[in-house]
């Protein structure tokens, strides 16, 4: 059986692991509480830009060294940034544990070189341009901006072209010292990991992280203004699109809510890609290209998304179908058979995912970072299997009764 272990270092850095000597691989990840919701207007896009710059060299390694060594360890490594966290992770063979610990930990003390910053600014601008060309053409970002306001959870993870053009390396260094303090960081590991060796190494290597102190104090944002580069229209203009894209956003449970399991099952019953109510009415019939829904959990609140893509001429009738399906679930709940099917499918999915340490890493690290809580596979299965029809009905009434906010891209 996998074994859970955890430690908190003197500097406040937390280490958690789900170890299993039977695994062929090990995964390691730094989970940092630094996301777009932590940014102020002049810092917009900084968490993500910084994520890129963390690969650009340390006191001991050049940018080339970092990328080369990551590749020398042969595994999969990458990073991502969301509204609430930035994550750096790698999956390697167990024999490389010492080297990947050394490398990832060293990366967490970047030099943030000015020249590298200028080159990487272009890469970020290209990334923004790339997403402008991809459906739904910034529609999800717009939905978040309108629903949460363009600040806090509604702030764009990539920032805007304007905020990235205006960014300085100095401001990034300061943001780094503010966010990458040990109390904001969890190191998570999973798979075939030597936990005691891990804790010993990290303790030695991160002692100085408590010395990070931000110099700059930025003024609070003016809540009455709209940040530069942001539009709040419910209509996203896409001159060339052949399909219509409809995004609806409303309230949902947080990642700490006991309703989250029921909400996930409800989303499976309503909007799963094969065999849900939306699927049979809208996808199987060829009425829409996409018709789905999902809860998005944040640490202290949540959102519920509905997403519809179809021929523009069919948009209105398809919106009506979706509304009726949602209305019906709010009024009548779900059947016993539907719930059973969703539970079986979800439980099997959890079991299958758990075979790879790289899959387990993210739920272990994120959960500990935000909630200081560990949920093992059996507990996750119990949580899912104990949801009943009444709990689903309750969630549907709580979150789906109100008209959602709607954004159209067409």
């Amino acid at each position, binding site marked *: 059986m996998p074994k859970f272990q955890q430690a908190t270092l003197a500097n406040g850095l937390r280490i958690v692991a789900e170890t299993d000597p039977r*695994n062929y691989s090990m995964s390691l990840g730094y989970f940092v509480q630094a996301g777009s919701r932590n940014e102020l207007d002049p810092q917009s896009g900084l968490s993500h830009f910084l994520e890129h710059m963390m690969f650009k060299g340390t006191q001991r390694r050049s940018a080339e060294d970092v990328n080369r060594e990551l590749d*020398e360890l042969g595994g999969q490594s990458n990073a991502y940034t969301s509204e609430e966290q930035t994550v750096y992770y790698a999956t390697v063979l167990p024999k490389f544990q010492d080297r990947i610990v050394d490398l990832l930990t060293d990366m967490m003390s970047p030099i943030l070189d000015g020249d590298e910053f200028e080159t990487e600014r272009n890469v970020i601008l290209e990334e923004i341009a*790339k997403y402008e060309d991809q459906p739904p053409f910034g529609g999800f970002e717009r939905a978040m901006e309108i629903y949460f306001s363009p600040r806090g959870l509604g702030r764009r993870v990539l920032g805007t072209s304007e905020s990235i053009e205006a960014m300085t390396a100095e401001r990034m260094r300061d943001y780094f010292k503010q966010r990458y303090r040990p109390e904001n960081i969890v190191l998570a590991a999973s798979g075939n990991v030597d936990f005691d060796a891990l804790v010993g190494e990290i303790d030695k290597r991160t002692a100085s992280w408590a010395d990070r102190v931000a110099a700059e104090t930025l003024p609070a944002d003016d809540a009455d203004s709209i940040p530069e580069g942001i539009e709040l229209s419910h209509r996203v203009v896409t001159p060339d699109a052949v399909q219509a894209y409809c995004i609806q956003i409303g309230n949902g449970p947080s990642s700490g809510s006991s309703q989250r399991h029921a909400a996930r099952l409800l989303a499976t019953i309503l909007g799963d890609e094969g065999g849900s109510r939306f699927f049979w009415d809208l996808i199987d019939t*060829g009425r829409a290209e996409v018709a789905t829904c999902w809860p998005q959990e944040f640490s202290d609140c949540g959102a519920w998304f509905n997403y519809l*893509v179809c021929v523009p001429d069919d948009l209105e009738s398809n919106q009506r179908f979706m509304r009726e399906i949602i209305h019906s679930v709010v009024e009548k709940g779900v059947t016993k058979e539907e719930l059973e099917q969703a539970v079986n499918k979800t439980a099997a999915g959890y079991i299958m995912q758990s075979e790879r340490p790289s899959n387990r890493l993210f739920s272990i690290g994120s959960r500990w970072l935000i909630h200081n809580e560990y949920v093992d596979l059996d507990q996750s299965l119990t949580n899912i299997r104990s949801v009943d029809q009444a709990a689903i009905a309750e969630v549907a009434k709580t979150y789906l009764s109100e008209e959602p906010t709607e954004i159209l891209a067409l």
Partner: protein
Amino acid sequence: MSTSTQSSADPSSQSEITTHPLPCGMTVLVQPMPWLRTAAFTLSLRSGIQTEPENRAGLASMVCEMVQRGAGSFSSRDLVAMQDNLGMDRNSGVSTATSSFGAAMPAESFGEALNLYADIVRRPHLPADQIEDARMMMIQELRAIEDEPTQRVMKRVRELHYGSRLGRGNQGTMESLAAINSDDIRQFYQATYHAGGAILTVAGRVEADTVVQLAQEAFGDWRTEDVDDAPLPSGAPVYEHIQAASSQTHIAFAFPSIPYGHPDYFAMRAGIGILSDGMSSRLFDRVREKRGLCYTVSASCHSLINAGGVFGYAGTTPARAQETLDVTLGEIRNLPSDLEQSELDRWKVRIESGLIMEQESSASRASSLASDFYQIGRAMPTAELSEIIEALTLDDVKGYWEKHPPSDYRIVTLGPEKLNV
């Protein structure tokens, strides 16, 4: 479960692949992976795009969709309910040569799941009243691609690379989809869904004897027919520009290469790995990291049974597009001139690690087995592949790329301005 870290780290010791030709014409391959909780299968039929009539593009996909709309004693909804209740994570799809159905699941569901798929491929209802729905589904897919510039250029460059017969996409065109009727569907089903050339691969917590017995019961009396050889590719060098008011210029390129199974395949593949696998690869380092020209740039190998190609993509804002194209193709051209041992070594570690980590996924093994068997006519044991990779020298890679410099590029761009090619 497995005994110790020591022995389970040696994949070959516990997971011998066995091959079982059934009298009906289907070949069954089994790889037991007793340390897993799951089982996975891939069922691959010779019902690919290349078997479609010229003017019925999209027919293979349409039939692949239709067979899943009710089979045996089950309606379409029954099938999905059973699959979900068995915990199957399923997929199906059509490629140039084959139609494939696959799923991963908790191991105890395997027997029932296999029987369900025997119904789907052998006893489908092909309900006439659902043809319009299936057609509409495919039209939605076609329209979706039109809004995805990356997919659009990659799809087009593939057509240009292999020619209209082998290179065309599985979605068809608005015209060809409109022309497909219920006779086409029945005839194509009759002609291509049979045991001839069929491959069933199973990996995970299963035993070979049990799998073969189940397969014999489910497919043993399936009819069989001969399968045709693959048509020849017919692509030619060309540059094509698609005018669009996009934020980026999307660049797709391809040039001819050798297929999997060719004696030089891994020498060629290592070169592409050095160019594009990983964050220290040449394209990532020299086009993105050093010059900041783009966010995405990559090249990869693709293989049909009788032809191959290297395909690449870069997306960049119009002002940097010409430089991006020039630098990218320049790096590919110059590949053999300054190869270093360390580059090959890194690529080898990557492949070796991937092979070991594949032991954590039954789905990944089942699908590798199916594609190996189709391409080279036998299973490729992990240990053998590992030896080939290990034995590869820098001279092999250099020699291959010096003797076969990339040429006859097919290039497609989409954006506000044409490039100089």
